[in-house]
């Protein structure tokens, strides 16, 4: 590992000659000098200069998050976010997210019933749409690949998706309603 290329916060990043890159994560500009703000090696990805971080970070708009449903109400489902952009958060430091009825799916938004889409304990994959209010981040599942990825049936077995709004229990064969995420690789 080239030790010289390691940058520390505040250290100027020396750029190769050519067009000035766009600044991504972990770098900033001050008085015309581009400097690192994280410990790491600056990398050029396309036209952006970034220092990638391996540590967990709070959700931001357009983050893909994973979380479990903690509370349901007729208007919204509360989600405890435990993975942000593929990086798990430390235990006990979950962020709270909210899926409102209008954010559950893209069509027939006015006929969504939260109880037919989520149950407590379901693992949901969602996209952060805004920072929300003081208490929670707003999450949407209005995309084919977003929604419930893991759920247990009333009999306690892990269910498998059969359509985008139904899941079947392999033990009893009963069908329960969920807003399913399209499984990856299908």
């Amino acid at each position: 590992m080239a030790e010289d290329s390691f940058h520390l916060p505040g250290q100027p990043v020396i750029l190769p000659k050519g067009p000035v890159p766009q600044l991504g994560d972990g770098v900033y500009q001050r008085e015309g000098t581009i400097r690192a703000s994280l410990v790491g090696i600056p990398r050029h990805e396309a036209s952006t200069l970034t220092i990638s971080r391996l540590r967990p970070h709070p959700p931001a708009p357009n983050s893909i998050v994973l979380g479990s449903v903690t509370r349901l109400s007729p208007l919204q489902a509360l989600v405890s976010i435990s993975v942000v952009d593929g990086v798990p958060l430390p235990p006990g430091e979950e962020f709270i997210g909210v899926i409102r009825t209008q954010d559950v799916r893209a069509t027939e938004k006015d006929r969504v019933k939260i109880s037919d889409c989520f149950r407590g304990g379901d693992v949901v994959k969602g996209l952060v749409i805004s920072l929300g209010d003081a208490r929670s981040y707003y999450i949407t599942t209005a995309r084919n690949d977003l929604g419930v990825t893991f759920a247990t049936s009333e009999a306690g077995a892990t269910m498998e998706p059969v359509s985008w709004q139904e899941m079947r229990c392999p033990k009893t064969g009963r069908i329960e309603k969920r807003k399913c995420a399209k499984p990856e690789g299908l």
Partner: protein
Amino acid sequence: MQSGFDRRRINGPEESFPPIFHDSDSEDNAPPPKKLPRKGRSPKDIRPIFLQPGLINQSNGSAYIETEKTKIACAVYGPRQSKNTAYSEHGRLNVEVKFAPFSCHRRKQPLRDAEDRSVAVAIHQALVSSVRLELFPKSTIDVFINIIEADGLEGCIASASVATSAALADAGIDLFGLVVSCSAAVVGDEIWLDPTEEEVQSSNGTMVLSTLPALNTMTSIWQNGRLSPSQVLEGIGICDEKCKDIHSIVAQAVRDHAVQQI
């Protein structure tokens, strides 16, 4: 009598007496006569620094600093979601300082008191402008500083600021630069860097300067006691010079730790 009793802790006996030592140490306790050079070092010397980032596994980032008789452990948690606060565009930096009961000459109650808070505020001041809080909306970064042994409050603030900055870098939190602090005391006409408890007691006044050597800027000055403006300016100059030396130590420690982790 029972007001100081806390059922949740192991309470010591009601009466206690300080141990009496029969060795050369007791002579050291007498305040040094003024106008004498400092014990074992020149006015511009600081105590040797040992800095080790990443000692506390559970935390997001941590650092331990030791300068002779000052020993401080610092842990950074977060960024985590702010609870019970209004919506804010910027993140918050929350600093808590705890003195170990055995950290000072007099035993400290294991409760938070005014001294902890004022030290915490001084450290917060030194650090807050170095953290890119605009990148952490709605979040809080918690910093817990445990002072295991203290030798001079000014030295504690300076060392704790340095350790916390290293811990923040270790935690992968965006910083404008590493904060480096240096303390000084004015004794007679001289300025002594990194004073010990004894030296502070015999001084007219003290100061702690915190800087970002990478950007050539200062983040805070904390002054205590009676100092003339010329002494303050001279002190700032000397501390600033020393901060650059300390910065190389801190940078090396942070870099070594980062390289080790990969």
